[in-house]
């Protein structure tokens, strides 16, 4: 065909139709690519028509150019459209072929932190958020810190209450600390007033290991010494801790008791976090967590005995303070419905793995 023939509207229309038919006929991306030379390439009718424009008289050039452009874009668009369609088809096929069983995960050893660690950090964080600091001390202690400074007189029967493990040399006064209170003593001796510290740690008693006793257990104690500290502050702090650990609105109650290092002293009960005390009301549903008592024994507390302040060099006329302690093992046990304390200290990794995921 000569140039002008190629530029005839019918010719361009035919070229377009043939191109479109070829594209549609191509069933794969490769087949489509093969049609490209014939319909879009330099030797394609439309390309040749474009070249033929140059041979036209000036007056016809514009018209012919417009026709060629229309045809060329139509062909190009059809090609792209078909290409996209074929690519989509291919991608979908490939994606289907590549499908895997997403329930098969590669084996990975999963580590975990011990629940005593995480619960201890959690308590510490509650207090750190209030501006308190975390104090620590040695586990083998001198009895002056563990007993004497805490107002346990030499023959005070209270020393018998805490079955102490003594450390050699005999008569050296070394003991495995029976509570974290010696850390409080060290804090009062070493820190500037006022003192707001939380003392988590391991403590020891000469208790034979059974389901509810362990010679080793974990405690966290708090100590606040400042001007004007009252028992109301103690109650406020305990209720805050209860709410932070067991949910908003969980409260504590105090029952008078005796500890040498506090006066007044109290046992502290936690309102049952499961039934919120409802099980103890007439007609209440029974509660396993608190044995339908409504309250769970949680720890001890009181106002720091002036004798302790004196032994630590603090003026009891100017300063007062409160202290409290809770057993972390115990907290763990009732929180997780755990009935055997030995599970905590056996090192069975199934125990840690199940409970150690809490941040």
């Amino acid at each position, binding site marked *: 065909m000569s140039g002008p023939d190629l530029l005839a509207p019918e010719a361009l229309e035919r070229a377009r139709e043939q191109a479109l038919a070829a594209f549609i006929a191509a069933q794969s991306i490769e087949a489509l690519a093969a049609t490209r030379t014939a319909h879009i390439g330099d030797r394609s009718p439309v390309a040749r028509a474009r070249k033929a424009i140059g041979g036209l008289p000036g007056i016809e050039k514009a018209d012919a150019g417009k026709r060629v452009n229309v045809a060329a874009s139509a062909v190009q668009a059809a090609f792209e459209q078909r290409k996209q369609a074929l690519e989509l088809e291919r991608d979908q096929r490939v994606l289907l072929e590549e499908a895997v069983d997403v329930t098969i995960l590669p084996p990975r050893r999963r580590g975990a932190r011990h629940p005593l660690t995480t619960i201890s950090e959690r308590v510490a964080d509650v207090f750190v958020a209030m501006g308190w600091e975390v104090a620590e001390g040695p586990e083998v202690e001198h009895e002056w810190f563990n007993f004497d400074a805490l107002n346990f007189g030499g023959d005070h029967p209270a020393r018998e209450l805490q079955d102490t493990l003594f450390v050699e040399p005999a008569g050296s006064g070394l003991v495995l600390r029976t509570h974290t209170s010696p850390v409080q003593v060290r804090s009062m001796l070493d820190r500037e007033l006022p003192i*707001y510290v939380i003392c988590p740690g391991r403590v020891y008693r000469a208790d034979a290991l059974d389901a509810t006793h362990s010679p080793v257990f974990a405690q966290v104690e708090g100590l606040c010494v400042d001007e004007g500290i009252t*028992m109301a502050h103690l109650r406020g702090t305990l209720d805050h801790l209860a709410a932070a650990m067991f949910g908003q609105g969980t409260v504590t109650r105090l029952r008078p008791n005796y500890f040498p290092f506090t006066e007044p002293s109290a046992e502290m009960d936690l309102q049952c976090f499961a039934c919120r005390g409802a099980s103890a009301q007439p007609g209440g549903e029974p509660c396993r967590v608190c044995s339908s008592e409504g309250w769970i024994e949680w720890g001890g507390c009181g106002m720091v005995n002036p004798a302790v302040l004196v032994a630590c060099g603090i003026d009891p006329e100017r300063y007062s303070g409160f202290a409290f302690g809770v057993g972390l093992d115990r907290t763990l046990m009732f929180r997780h419905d755990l009935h055997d304390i030995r599970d905590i200290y056996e090192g069975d990794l199934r125990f840690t793995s199940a409970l150690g995921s809490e941040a």
Partner: protein
Amino acid sequence: MRVPVSWLRTLVPDLTAAAGDIAAALVRAGLEVEQVHRVGHEISGVVVGEVLDIEELTGFKKPIRFCHVTTGTRVHDVVCGAVNFTAGDRVAFATPGAVLPGGFRIATRQTYGHTSDGMICSAAELGLSGDPSGILVLPSDSPLGTDVVELLALRDEVLDIAVTPDRGYQLSVRGVAREAATAFGVAFSDPGLAESASAGSDAFVVRVDAPEACDRYVARVVTGVDPAAQSPAWLQRRLTLAGMRPISLAVDVTNAVMLELGQPLHAFDLDALQGAIVVRRAATGERLVTLDGQDRALDRGDLLITDDSGPIALAGVMGGGPTEVTAATRSLLIESAHFAPRSIARTARRHKLPSEASRRYERGVDPALAAAAAEAAVRLLVELAGATAGPVTDVDTRPPQPVLALPVAAPGRLAGRAYEPQVVRRRLEDVGCTVAGDDPLEVTPPTWRPDLTGRAELIEEVLRLEGYDTIPVVLPTAPAGRGLTAEQRLRRVASRMLAAGGFVEVVLPPFVSPESLDALGGAMHPPRVLNPLSAQEALLRPTLLPGLLAAVARNVSRGLVDVAVYETGHVFVGPGGSAPTPGVEGPPTAAQRAALDGALPPQPRHVGVALAGGPASWDAALGALVELGAALGLSLRPRAVEAGPDLQPGPYHPGRSAELLLDGGRVGIAGELHPRVCVALGLPTRTCAGEANLDVLVSAAAAAGPQPAPVVSHFPPASVDVALVVGRDVPAAEVEAALREGAGELLEALHLFDVYTGAQTGEGRRSLAYTLRLRAGDRTLTDVEVLAARDAAITEAGRRTGAVLRS
């Protein structure tokens, strides 16, 4: 202390509340009521019957009686195995359907060839103390058909109270009754006020040579005791409910008075005493056979009751055999004394002899009670044993009661709320204080409250009786805090790092056996626990390994195959020393403090890992600690452990373990365990472990402070590979260090991608292939620069390690 509620009510006549409510009120006032035992509440269907006739059955191995018993409305056939009754006796008869203590139900049954339509009860079968082989014969005027539960008051409640060491007065019905009366606002009838007869000229001679340990000694002579007299049922009942066994009238009387008043009494056989009583400390070498038959060597600190024959009792703890009251005793000397708590506590502990008496003396007995208690006992003996009250001896050197000043606003100041002055005064009077003055109040504590020694103790009384629940709830405002210390934060990082790395944390007791340390090799001398719970595990761990390896073995024995555990905790290195215990009248001096702290054994925190099964490889153990260091910002370098000639330097495989160095200092060790350790400890073969001093790591990390930021170059890197052949005994780390040094500051990263040993490397040599990534901060490197750096690296490696470029 077990307090029968019926006994309590005798001292608080207007107390009508139910036992449960009394218990709740006492708990609120600070008494630890652990339990309310209900006694006899299940008994039903037992009535007074009369035995009409008795037929002795023969042909059985034991005597059996067939009787007719009438309840007034019906006559029952009854077979009975007891023989201590006659026709006409009134008895406790359990009718068919009756329920006895323990839920034991009585039914009609066939036995010994007869129908037995009920049961004649013994005292024991009704929950009373008494001879279980014989039935209980009731007084002949007991009305037929009456409910025996009512007649004998078989129903009661017993409050079981745990008494804290400061509250000796609660070891008496008297003390608990006073609290109950206060709690319910009703009158209390104090049984401790009985008037005593005055001392006579013929009084028994008592001399107290140790007044610091005995400021009151009352002795009462009682004669004409009928040895046949038995404790009446009500007395036995009280003792049984209070948890004591009835023994004999004289002993029961002293026990009952002790339970009611809290004053321990001791009864001597007057006829066995030789000469005057002297209260004194033991002399060296003295001995005493106590009532329990033990021949005891006495300590010079022991307070004794003696007569001309020598020691006759450990004062306040236990009496001696020769002067013990027996079934034949007709004359008594009753001792009612006040001994110093500390002396009694020491003696009871020294001889491991806690007794009802010592328990009370240790916690403080009311010194004003001595005469009244003796009088109460004497009156009972006169009433129940036909005895004659003899003269009184009262050696009394008690100091006057102290007077304490209490600002009237002090209780409110400590509570965080106000109490009206009259409330403060009334509450102090409730506990027995005498209160004078307005402000400050001048408070004389009662004689039974030796624990009320200062202002804080008085404040507690006001607060607890007003109720802790009336104290407001206020959160204190702490000054701005500094958060966790760097060390505390870094320890958390270390723990999280290990957990994220697939290790499971364990928390293990620190007690280890010498054998478990021996199995690990090496000489360790950790502190020993003097009174260990297990004689085998008496040492405090000097390393975390024994516990971790035992945990591995335990997990494996429980069927877990792949085990990776870690622990962080204190270890105890070397023995502790001694330091004298300073006083508590002020803080220790600097020298005292240094001595106290210096006596403690070093107890650093360690971190340990152990792996068995799939995850176990020497490099996993070592890598865990290296990565832990990296997480703290520390570069820990491994170095092969120098093995001794016997290849047994410690618990580790000499060829597959490494020390970890921080700035040249050893901070840990890790790797595969020595095969012998695995065998000795029953561990899977190729169990691996590692341990590092966590304290050293976190303090180094904390001290390092903030690191300067690197220059992050945006120019393209140049990568170049280098394969070097070196002797097999040259550690890769040395080659790597040389390459780094040689390549200089253009080297951005370096990584070992191949280790090859084969024919091409030559005998005793191996090939290490590294990729070096080079980059400059300010330009694109030219080929010349890259090659120069590479060549410099190779040259340095060659110089230091003999490495040659692999051809």
